[in-house]
């Protein structure tokens, strides 16, 4: 049977992709950020998962505002990034795993989550930056297979934090009911606090992010007390992306162990966070 090993929460700021491309990991601006990934590289090297489910949002590459699915799942044999108008260079394609994609889609819809299935899907920096962060030395023939799970956190209304946590739980059930022996990890990306638009641009909130990280392993319901509007006030309109970390957390079930955590302000305009949670039961 397939098994979920653990989950990782990580920011996905495009500037990180530029820093990787320019090899700035040891630069004083970047070092405190990249150092937070060392325990994750070691854990991934030890566990060697077969599949990564990557929860992210598209920022206007694959989905325009003409059609905006709340929850979309990739079911393609491979995923490519592309010109977003600026920034990152196109990368080698990421191999998918359609049999598990369709199992997830079937299981989730049966579980009453209405999913948009995508047999073609471009992936933007929200997807590629976490991939480059987790697997910096990706070797095309040996690389992990991916399943993109794209969430609307661009055009309000977004799914609620509660809905995200429940979607994660349903993803966890779906993975663990898949018959093939596969080791799976799930990534929840985006956040933490940041604000790109309005006079308050540049806003971050260390106290709020710290409490979020503190509660994520053992009390993820803490975030559910806030509406997305309240989260926009507390974490910035783009900081609401942290609800995607709840999908990761929900998938892991009740018992997890926090193995590492890092928090650093600033990466570009963002308070960057990373956390590694291992499923313990």
């Amino acid at each position, binding site marked *: 049977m397939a098994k979920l090993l653990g989950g990782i929460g990580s920011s996905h700021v495009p500037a990180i992709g530029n820093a990787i491309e320019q090899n700035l990991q040891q630069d004083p601006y970047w070092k405190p950020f990249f150092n937070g990934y060392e325990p994750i590289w070691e854990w991934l090297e030890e566990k060697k998962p077969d599949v990564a489910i990557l929860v992210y949002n598209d920022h206007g590459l694959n989905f325009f505002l003409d059609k905006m699915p709340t929850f979309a799942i990739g079911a393609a044999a491979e995923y490519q990034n592309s*010109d977003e108008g*600026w920034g990152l260079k196109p990368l080698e394609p990421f191999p998918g795993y359609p049999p598990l994609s369709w199992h997830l889609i079937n299981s989730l819809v049966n579980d009453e989550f209405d999913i948009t299935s995508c047999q073609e899907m471009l992936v933007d920096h929200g997807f590629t930056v976490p991939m480059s962060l987790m697997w910096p030395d990706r070797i095309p023939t040996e690389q992990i297979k991916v399943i993109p799970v794209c969430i609307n956190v661009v055009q*309000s209304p977004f799914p609620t934090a509660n809905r995200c946590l429940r979607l994660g739980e349903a993803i966890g059930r779906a993975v663990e009911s898949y018959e093939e022996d596969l080791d799976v990890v799930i990534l929840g990306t985006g956040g933490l606090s940041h604000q*790109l638009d309005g006079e*308050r*641009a540049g806003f*971050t909130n260390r106290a709020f992010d710290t409490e979020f990280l503190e509660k994520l392993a053992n009390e993820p319901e803490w975030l559910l007390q806030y509406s997305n509007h309240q989260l926009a*006030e507390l974490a910035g309109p783009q900081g609401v992306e942290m609800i995607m970390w709840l999908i990761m957390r929900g998938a892991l079930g009740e018992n997890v162990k926090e193995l590492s955590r890092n928090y650093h*302000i600033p990466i*570009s305009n963002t308070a960057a966070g990373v956390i590694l949670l291992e499923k313990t039961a």
Partner: protein
Amino acid sequence: MTQSPKDKPIPGTMIFDGDMAMKGYALNKMCFSFNSAINRDAFKADEDTYCDQYGITDAQRAAVKARDVLELLKLGGNIYYLAKLTGMFGLNMQDIGAQQSGVSLDDFKAKLLAAGEQ
């Protein structure tokens, strides 16, 4: 209204909801086209003709000309799409963050670094 009536406005913050998405649809659609290098070149060659093709309003066109991000947001622009527009003029997220908050780029960066030292 797609926002709940009980939601209080957040100072210095605009929520990109259904009302804004309708208002800015043509503008955002034009910005979405800038994912393609050919379209970026066409815009740079003749901004007015390019704006005409997308049915951009006069107010939006003036704000595009002025590279005025706050005004473009008020007119329905979404920040991720506007970033594709401003990127063509060499302005990144930090440049437009400084512009919107009314400070120099150095002051904007210093504010973020200071938040890291709290």
